[in-house]
């Protein structure tokens, strides 16, 4: 099916004079919007009282039923990046971001209908499935575009966009709370479906700003004063590996493991942050303060995305990931010592978790540049999209592991404050696998690169080269 003219790739090539500094705001508009998914938990309690309003009554959804919505969204995110990666490469970021906005906005509206009619499957389908496709398209397209606009500073560029995804929850969470309070006070029940309608429309409009701002560089464009290296240096290649070929090299699977281990360890903390700190410091950290802890982790998760990926432009991607794993193992092993039964230091525990979360975020933002270094940019979306399935897998494995280990230790009679020690030691062990995988990453062998004359993406045939 042909795309509308304004979405066609060849119509979106930047004209001469277009500043590449317009691309990060376009990317941020999309990532700040779809990052709302991390704040979905603010709907959990209101949705569980959709009928009873002030308390849960017969027929209300359980929190476990509601939690599935988030899991579906994250799983579909990872899968859709793998499925649509080549499509994004072929059709360009504007089309991908447009359909992302449509899916993400529509997901909210369908979910709102589900809340209004009290049909949980509509929430699964709407926010989970349709919204999840919006997440995948919206996550991948801006990152892919920034890598091409900033060949001289890929870490900085992707860090800016992916920082937005981490920061999206900081807007989504207070926005949803205020909207629900507003509509709830006007007699609109818990105010959840009305909030979802407003958020669907607002996010759609905000993402459209990104859609109409983004451009792709002309094939022969390069930053002023920057000379592309004529031959591969260390881990940074000048060639391009096509997506089919990438699946045949070990580097792809090693990077998959690197992302999987780093994400599994971090997501375990994120998912359990609030109860974890309350149970590790019983009586000392209460629910409100635990909410503050979650907020602080979000800040470091976001800041780490920018900080670490920028650092990686100087350190190199491999050494940046080495920092994550070496420091991560040490900090996960040290964290239990801060607990109530040892040093009883909230400050130390919070500090350790903040650094760990910064590295969790840093893993996401450094990976695109790592992929670009190893595989080139021609089939970037397809390769990177497939790698993001590691995120889906970690999204399931991390929380499962943390919850099961915690309950297993608790059932053995271990006090809750100490049960987390096992969890944290296991996370340190998982990071050791990541460290090993990262150590094994070597430059891709020359035989796997596409011949220089063979284009991996369709040329902008027939279209004007500058818009």
């Amino acid at each position: 099916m042909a795309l509308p003219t304004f979405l066609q790739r060849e119509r979106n090539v930047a004209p001469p004079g277009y500043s590449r500094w317009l691309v990060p705001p376009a990317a941020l508009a999309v990532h700040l919007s779809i990052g709302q998914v991390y704040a979905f938990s603010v709907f959990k309690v209101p949705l569980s009282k959709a009928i009873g309003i002030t308390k849960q009554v017969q027929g209300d959804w359980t929190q476990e039923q509601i939690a599935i919505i988030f899991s579906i969204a994250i799983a579909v995110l990872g899968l859709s990046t793998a499925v649509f990666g080549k499509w994004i490469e072929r059709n360009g970021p504007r089309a991908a971001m447009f359909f992302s906005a449509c899916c993400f906005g529509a997901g909210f509206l369908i979910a709102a209908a589900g809340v209004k009619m009290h049909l949980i499957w509509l929430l699964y389908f709407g926010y989970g499935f349709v919204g999840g496709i919006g997440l995948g398209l919206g996550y991948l397209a801006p990152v892919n575009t920034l890598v091409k606009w900033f060949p001289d500073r890929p870490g900085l560029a992707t860090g800016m966009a992916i920082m937005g995804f981490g920061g999206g929850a900081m807007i989504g969470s207070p926005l949803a709370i205020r909207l629900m309070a507003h509509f709830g006070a006007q007699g609109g029940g818990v105010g959840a479906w009305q909030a979802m309608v407003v958020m669907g429309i607002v996010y759609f409009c905000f993402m459209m700003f990104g859609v109409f701002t983004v451009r792709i560089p002309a094939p022969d464009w390069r930053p002023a004063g920057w000379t592309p290296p004529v031959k591969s240096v260390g881990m940074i290649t000048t060639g391009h590996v096509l997506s089919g070929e990438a699946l045949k090299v070990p580097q792809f699977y090693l990077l998959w493991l690197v992302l999987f281990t780093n994400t599994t360890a971090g997501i375990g903390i994120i998912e359990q942050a609030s109860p974890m700190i309350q149970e590790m410091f019983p009586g000392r950290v209460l629910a409100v303060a635990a909410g503050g802890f979650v907020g602080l982790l979000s800040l470091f998760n976001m800041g780490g995305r920018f900080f670490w990926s920028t650092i990686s432009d100087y350190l190199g991607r491999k050494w940046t990931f080495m920092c994550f794993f070496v420091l991560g193992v040490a900090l996960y092993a040290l964290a239990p010592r801060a607990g109530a039964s040892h040093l009883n230091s909230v400050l130390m525990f919070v500090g350790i978790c903040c650094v760990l979360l910064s590295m969790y975020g840093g893993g996401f933002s450094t990976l695109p540049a790592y992929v670009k270094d190893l595989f080139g940019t021609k089939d970037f979306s397809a390769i990177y999209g497939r790698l993001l399935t590691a995120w889906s897998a970690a999204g399931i494995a991390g929380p499962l592991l943390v919850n099961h280990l915690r309950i297993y230790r608790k059932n053995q009679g271990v006090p809750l404050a100490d049960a987390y020690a096992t969890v944290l030691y296991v996370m340190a062990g998982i990071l050791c696998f990541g460290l090993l995988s990262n150590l094994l990453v070597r430059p891709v062998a020359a035989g796997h690169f596409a011949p220089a004359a063979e284009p991996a993406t369709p040329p902008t045939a027939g279209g004007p080269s500058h818009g």
Partner: protein
Amino acid sequence: MAETTTYESASGPAPDGHATSPVTIAIAWIVVILPAAWGITQTIKQSTQLFKNPPAAVTPTTTTTTR
């Protein structure tokens, strides 16, 4: 091989087009920075709760008045 064009506007106007205005770039950044700054402010306010002392446990108080 195609001739390489280097029309990065940061270093001045493009040879055959008009460079993006710095005002346009500033507006684009403001559009995304404003909501992000609001979100960060809200989060920082929430985070300060962590460093506030928990309310003291309510214990029955006995007032002994010695006159």
